[in-house]
């Protein structure tokens, strides 16, 4: 039985964490993540959860405490945003290389400076090579759903990698929306008991985490991380399918929204996908063959599936909510271009950088993107293929 709730994205994240009831949660506040941990702290204070709640003095410590707890065999979580993620950077890589199945909501916010508390993806895009799985959420429902799935994905013995569940600061984190949540018993059964494969506290099977690992074995350990990430797509798909059987809401790594016969396809992540779907519906009603390719899992990135999804497109617009300074376009754009290389594809592709520091992306903006793409079929990628949406020049 689903429970219909009206929650902000942050409260939806805290609701999922209440039901997951991790053994250890370490926290340091940063806008816009603060309200999520505030709500979870209420659950701790009210005795709704058994989690050991560790208040630390920085995000570096938050991730360190989470890593320590996870290495000891605990199910451990934290959450952060932007500069908080930047401060935990060193330990973010360590969490992945120790193969610790930590789940962390990251509430997307622009990195300073100048200082800005609003949404863009510069924080999580910056650590796309850190070895974490990244699931981007479209709204409060997906925040909840992705967190419950992330636990199963991270802890799968073939994967054993940490998972970031990202959602757009303020746009999702501070917007109250209607969502369906599982009953507590169902959610707890779904998440299941955590039986760590390796644990510092298991003296029957002693293991070491993080010893010196020089020219002799470091490379092999990196290779094993690659294997964990390679196993992840099948696990994400299976977990998404089983979650669908439980809730009626199945998940995949990508979502093809009306792309099957689409001439013009835009690609996006996060909350913008919801706005884009609305515009796609309006333009379909006008007879335009348009579609959206939503990337839910940016890591692992599914290049073959992406190329397959874009096979019929005559023009492609890639929306990036972050900049990769000095590179040819944003991070999503580069992945898409790389995915299409060798895929016998000469479709024109335009990159649209948008929404930095919380700049709104409206239905008019998305319509304009489609109208610009409409001029491209049959011609090569234009010279001005890196464009900016809603920017004063």
């Amino acid at each position, binding site marked *: 039985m689903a429970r219909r709730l009206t929650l902000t994205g942050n409260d939806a994240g805290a609701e999922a964490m209440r039901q997951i009831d991790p053994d250890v949660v370490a926290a340091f506040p940063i806008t816009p993540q603060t309200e999520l941990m505030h709500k979870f702290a209420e659950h701790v204070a009210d005795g709704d959860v058994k989690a050991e709640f560790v208040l630390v003095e920085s995000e570096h410590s938050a991730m360190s405490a989470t890593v320590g707890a996870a290495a000891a065999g605990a199910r451990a979580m934290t959450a952060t945003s932007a500069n908080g993620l930047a401060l935990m950077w060193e330990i973010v890589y360590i969490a992945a290389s120790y193969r610790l199945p930590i789940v962390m909501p990251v509430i997307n916010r622009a990195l300073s400076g100048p200082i800005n508390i609003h949404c863009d993806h510069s924080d999580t895009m910056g650590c796309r090579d850190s070895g974490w799985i990244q699931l981007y959420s479209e709204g409060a429902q997906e925040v909840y759903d992705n967190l419950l799935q992330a636990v199963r994905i991270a802890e799968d013995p073939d994967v054993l990698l940490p998972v970031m569940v990202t959602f757009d600061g303020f746009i999702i984190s501070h917007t109250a929306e209607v969502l369906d949540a599982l009953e507590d018993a169902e959610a707890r059964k779904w998440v299941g008991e955590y039986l760590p494969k390796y644990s510092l506290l298991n003296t029957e099977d002693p293991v070491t985490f993080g010893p010196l690992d020089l020219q002799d074995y470091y490379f092999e350990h990196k290779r094993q991380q690659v294997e964990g990430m390679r196993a992840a797509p099948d696990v994400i798909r299976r977990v998404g399918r089983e979650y669908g059987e439980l809730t009626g809401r199945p998940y995949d790594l990508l979502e093809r929204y009306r792309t099957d016969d689409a001439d013009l396809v835009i690609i996006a992540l996060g909350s913008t996908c919801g*706005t884009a779907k609305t515009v796609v519906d309006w333009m379909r009603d006008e007879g335009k063959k348009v579609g959206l390719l939503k990337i839910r899992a940016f890591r692992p990135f599914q290049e073959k599936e992406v190329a397959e999804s874009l096979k019929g497109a005559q023009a492609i617009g890639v929306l990036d909510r972050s900049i990769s300074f000095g590179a040819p376009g944003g991070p999503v754009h580069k992945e898409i271009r790389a995915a299409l290389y060798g895929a016998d594809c000469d479709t024109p592709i335009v990159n649209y950088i948008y929404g930095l520091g919380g700049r709104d992306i409206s239905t008019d903006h998305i319509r304009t993107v489609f109208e610009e793409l409409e001029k491209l079929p049959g011609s090569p990628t234009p010279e001005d293929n890196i464009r900016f949406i809603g920017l004063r020049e």
Partner: protein
Amino acid sequence: MAGILEIRWHARGGQGAKTASLLLAQAAAMEGKYSQGFPEYGPERMGAPMRGFTRISEEPIRLHCAIYSPEIVVVLDDTLLSAVDIAGGTPDDGIILVNTVKSADDVRKELDLKDRKIFVIDATGIAIEEIGRPIPNSPMLGALIKITGLLSLDAVINEIKKKFSHGFRPEVLEGNVRAITRAYEEVKEA
């Protein structure tokens, strides 16, 4: 916006527009509708102009952008009438509800509008009398649902009861319920 009712709230920081925008969304959801409530976060400080937004629909809402063309505008502080673009983006038959002791005709003159439906209610006066504090958000909700027929009075009162069931004295809750009910009855059109 086709199929989606959009509402913009204008207030000054501390008047409860954030709470009202979210509470209306929650009350609508309790009646089986889909909704969103979100304030616009700037450099928050008491007294600074701020805006909140609510969307209500019979269908799931996927939009995650700001509201540019609201059918309804709710103004919690009449000193904003001359300070910000209150009617911006509203259609000719849009509704503007203002917390003020002025008449609806005076508000119309101040906004220099020929069309649109303008309603007034002294929500601050009601709040002082019934709650003991000049926070006009609850009575404004009462007035809003009366003039729009959006939700039943019971739906909003139930949501207020939930909101105030933790950490508030019973007289605060009772005061809010009285304030909503009075505003529901007293709101006036030009």
